[in-house]
């Protein structure tokens, strides 16, 4: 694309992005550098078995029975969406700081004992690279689609523009919150093509 909304975005080095390894408290998780990738790759199992609590943290060797069911936390949400490609730059949403770990909120807080019927809200606030980015809606849609496909059915995904970072944030937020519009958008071949390309880098 020649006419990019933002030709020179700020780019974060991949090594600066937040990962599980940087968190000291995750003692139950091995330091294996492949872990985050492993989590991402395993997510689609939820698609075929929505009620199945896949023990994805199965390399947890500390526990007695060989695995524990780890609740989905903000880092895992981040890992699911930071690898989405920007629709106009050959870079990920994490590298462009469109998605940021502190702007991901899970309610109620992740807990291993959660009932699979308990509704859990995942709120992702995105930061478009420039305030009038016309692709903000497409980026938000990609995040919503990615999370709805990857998360169990008791998760409710809300994607919003971070306050003050976009000139039309109310309009974009309302579109992204509209289930019917999202469903119809996914049946639009052109838009679906753009989304598929963005999500290619996730798997």
């Amino acid at each position, binding site marked *: 694309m020649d006419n990019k909304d933002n030709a020179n975005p700020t780019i974060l080095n991949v090594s600066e992005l937040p990962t599980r390894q940087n968190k000291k408290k995750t003692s139950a998780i091995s330091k294996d550098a492949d872990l985050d990738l492993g989590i991402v790759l395993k997510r689609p199992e939820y698609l075929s078995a929505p*009620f199945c609590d896949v023990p994805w943290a199965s390399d947890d060797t500390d526990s007695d029975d060989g695995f524990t069911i780890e609740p989905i936390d903000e880092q895992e949400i981040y890992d699911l969406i930071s690898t989405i490609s920007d629709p106009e730059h050959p870079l990920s949403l994490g590298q462009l700081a469109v998605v940021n770990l502190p702007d991901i909120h899970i309610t109620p807080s992740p807990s291993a004992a959660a009932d699979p*019927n*308990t*509704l859990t809200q995942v709120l992702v606030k995105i930061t478009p690279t420039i305030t009038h980015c016309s692709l903000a809606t497409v980026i938000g849609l990609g995040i919503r689609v990615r999370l709805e496909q990857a998360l169990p*059915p*008791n998760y*409710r995904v809300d994607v919003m523009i971070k306050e003050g970072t976009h000139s039309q944030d109310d309009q974009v937020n*309302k579109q992204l919150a509209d289930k019917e*519009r999202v469903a*119809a958008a996914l049946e639009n071949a052109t838009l679906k093509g753009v989304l598929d390309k963005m999500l290619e880098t996730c798997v």
Partner: protein
Amino acid sequence: MSSHEPPMPVKLVPLPPFKPDLCERAWQSIPHPTLPLLATVHEKSVTVFSLSTLSPHSHLTNGHERSVRSTTWKPNLPPHKLCLITGSFDSSAGLWRWEDEGRGGSDNLEVEMTGGAREESEEKDWELIVVLEGHDSEIKSVAFSPSGQYVATCSRDKAVWIWEDVGASEADDEWETIAVLNEHDGDVKAVAWCPDTNRSGRGRYSSDVLASASYDDTVRIWREDEDGEWICVAVLEGHKGTVWGVQWEPNPKTDRFPRLLSWSADRTIRVWTLKEEEDEAQAAPRHAFGGLGGIPNTMRRSQKEEWSCTAILPTAHTRDIYSATWSPQTGRVASTGSDAVIAIYEEVASDPNGAVFTEDEAAAELDGDVPMSNGHSESNTEASSQWKLISTTPNAHGPYEINHITWCKRYDHDCPPEKRGVEEMLVTTGDDGIVRSWQIS
């Protein structure tokens, strides 16, 4: 039924669901106005279920290129003729017919389905007769008027279209666009015609009345004037989010004009009441001591009908309310939505002229500062419309969102024969592709 008895808490007991599971998102299930049939829209097709056997009666397929979002039964047909209109994301609406040739008897349909063996007829296909084209983008809702003369469609293109059946006979399917209503500022999510009750001879309009709900947070009411022009006679403002749907009061207790129910992404359900001109003189003194103060800012002087919000139902949902349904039998309202909760409300007192919600009161209720359904002023509590929440059922479709709820007559074999076609149940339709029914106890 006395309107002053305290409401009894009720429980929802699951009845056997319809089979098979559709295994994909289903948007809504519409009961036939008189026959034991239910039309469920899912993906690009419609499955018509028998309410007797809870299994498929027939299928409508290969008519739309994208998802079917809504459907409506043509009313007032003989029992061996069925007609549905489907509204699709492919921007078109389809008119379909199904005819049971050689079986004209009025009881046959039910008898045969009750018998369970219907091999030959189940293979009978619905035929797509006419495609109504004109909208620029997804059709969100379709609705037949009570007489079947008109169909309304609405779309993301912000327009409401009214189509008239101008065919010389029932079999002559010729439809004309008689109005394109472009006043909404956003997607029009739903259209609903006022039922054939207490609506004739009011004012200077013809008897058909249409309501539309929109992404622009408003509801609009449309009528046909003396010149045959369809005009917006009221804009109902108050919701603070997309209005997902509207339903007219199916069976008003008095001779008043039917009220209107609306539900929204703002998680509230509102009741709207027409201020009727002939009642104005006698209603005035009651307003004087009610301390309600003038006309709320929801009304515009220039509009030709005065509608006001006379109740906000008690808070029961934590996310978008996608659907609500008002029972013609009990007057109860049931609602559902993204939070997978089914809530049931009962009206315990009502006086359409006694209460008008102001925006401040509405906001206070939304904030939880004022107990829901407690009226708005001490002196007027008894006269105001009050609704109590009498039942909430969480996880009605497990963790899945519920897209639609409707009251529906029971015809299933677990229902005592004398109550078939009389007793009401609730039918819910969800993202899990399951159509569930619920007994009220």
